[in-house]
């Protein structure tokens, strides 16, 4: 007896080779996850590795530029690394008095003020300057929530603060790893492609190239935008004489990597500290105005010119990913969730494209 027409049209052919491919891809992903899981327990290697990958992506255009001028790859990598070390040393030498002074003052403040005392001060200021806020119960509720949030953020930040030994190891590992990733990155990629079976080999070459391009431009763009926003924030806060302007400005630049929430997260400490140090609520206004202006400059000039058409992620997905990343992995999750979503998005996009165009993924013929 023949099956009805609708039933015939939905018959799925199980392809043995594709099943094997999925099995191998699954095994590979599991092995990769296991490796990441093991490494995450020894964050001593994973964090420097991630930073080295990001650094190598950032420095690669400089190495290529030197190669274009006739230098061989190894010499170009050495030159770029040496110049970077000198620049970092000079910057550290130039900025270390400011950073040390701000750290010292900030640690003094942290010792004298707990989130509870800090919030009591803000509450008193609000009640004093905004008497039309007739509902103190509402303020108390908001302050309670803010206190809990501050404590959780402080806890996470303290967990993020590295101890001396891992920092020393990272300082050795990061340049070492970056050097070899820059020098042998192409060879590593070639060895990976070489290991693939013939039927997936052309597709994988194309896929890896596209992921490489999109991710490279995304990371370079994000870092450049963050540097611009960091520099603008430091300048604006210095002009407004906000205490700890350098640390807060730098943090605002870093927080800018988190879409939508980053700029707010960057602005809040500056607003609070300016209000407390000046002792009036009105002191928040110039800081808010400065951050709004920086946002405007970012949206109209910086991001469109630097990021351009690189990796677009839907705002709804961004919000879901940020909340999930923050909930699961804390501050590190907040910073890394968008680049990781980018990798997954590009991979899925290219795999779907591969499904439409390559027989190896469609059937076994």
């Amino acid at each position, binding site marked *: 007896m023949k099956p009805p027409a609708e039933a015939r049209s939905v018959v799925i052919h199980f392809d043995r*080779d594709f099943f*094997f*491919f999925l099995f*191998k891809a699954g095994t590979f992903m599991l092995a990769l996850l296991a490796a990441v899981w093991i490494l995450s327990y020894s964050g001593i290697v994973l964090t420097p590795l991630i930073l080295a990958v990001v650094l190598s992506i950032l420095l690669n255009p400089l190495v*290529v530029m030197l*190669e*274009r001028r006739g230098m061989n790859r190894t010499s170009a990598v050495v030159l770029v690394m040496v110049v970077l070390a000198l620049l970092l040393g000079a910057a550290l030498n130039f900025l270390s008095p400011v950073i040390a002074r701000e750290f010292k003052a900030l640690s003094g403040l942290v010792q004298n003020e707990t989130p509870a005392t800090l919030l009591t001060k803000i509450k008193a200021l609000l009640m004093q300057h905004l008497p039309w806020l007739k509902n103190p119960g509402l303020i108390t509720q908001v302050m309670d929530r803010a206190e809990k949030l501050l404590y959780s953020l402080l806890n996470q930040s303290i967990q993020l603060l590295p101890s001396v030994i891992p920092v020393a190891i990272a300082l050795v590992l990061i340049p070492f790893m970056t050097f070899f990733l820059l020098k042998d990155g*192409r060879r590593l990629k*070639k060895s990976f*492609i*070489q*290991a*693939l*079976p*013939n*039927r997936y*080999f*052309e597709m994988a*070459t*194309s896929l890896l*190239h596209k992921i490489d391009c999109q991710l490279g431009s995304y990371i370079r763009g994000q870092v450049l935008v963050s540097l611009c926003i960091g520099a603008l924030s430091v300048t604006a806060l210095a002009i407004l004489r906000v205490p700890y302007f350098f640390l807060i400005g730098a943090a605002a630049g870093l927080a800018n990597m988190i879409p939508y929430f980053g700029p707010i997260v960057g602005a809040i400490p500056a607003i609070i500290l300016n209000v407390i140090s000046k002792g009036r609520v009105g002191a928040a206004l110039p800081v808010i105005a400065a951050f709004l202006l920086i946002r405007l400059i970012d949206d109209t000039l910086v991001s469109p010119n630097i990021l351009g058409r690189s990796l677009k992620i839907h705002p709804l997905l961004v919000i879901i990913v940020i909340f999930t990343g923050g909930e699961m992995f804390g501050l590190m999750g907040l910073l890394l969730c968008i680049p990781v979503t980018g990798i997954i998005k590009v991979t899925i996009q290219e795999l779907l494209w591969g499904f439409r*165009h*390559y*027989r190896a993924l469609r059937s076994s*013929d």
Partner: protein
Amino acid sequence: MGSVNALWGNLFRHKNVDRGDITVLLKKIPLFTELHKGELREIERLVHRRVYKGGEVIFWEDEPGVGMYVVQHGEVGIFKDYAKAAQKELARLEPGDFFGEMALLEDDCRSATAVALDDTHLFGLFHPDLFNLFDRKPQLGVKLLSTLGNILARRLRKTNQDLLVLAKGRAGSAKKKTASP
């Protein structure tokens, strides 16, 4: 199991391929004849070595092309409508021959299917690697692109001549038809 073996096979094969062998083979390809030793070494670093069993498809017609291949050992058949009733063999390639070079320039699909007729060793050179090289070594890029331009111009001239011959033949046969009662 075969696929797993292929994975391991791919990992550990070709450790003993002579580098001079690749350079000599590359030098024979019209695209690379103008290059000197150092430049050939640059190309050699980009080359992927692949081994195909007899009957294994190298690439399929209408699939996106990523690059060209050079036959090192074995034999490759180029087919139109492969694995269909109307299958037609267009060419049979031997060591030193190359195919798929148009994919180095355009993002278009393959115009025919390439099949290894025997156990075959190939060198693959791919569009992303080549354009990455052009970015790093623009002088070498100009040299290669101008050679590729010359090859394509020669092919176009040859196609024009063939078309002319074909058109003359048609005109001749049309004249004969009108002359005959």
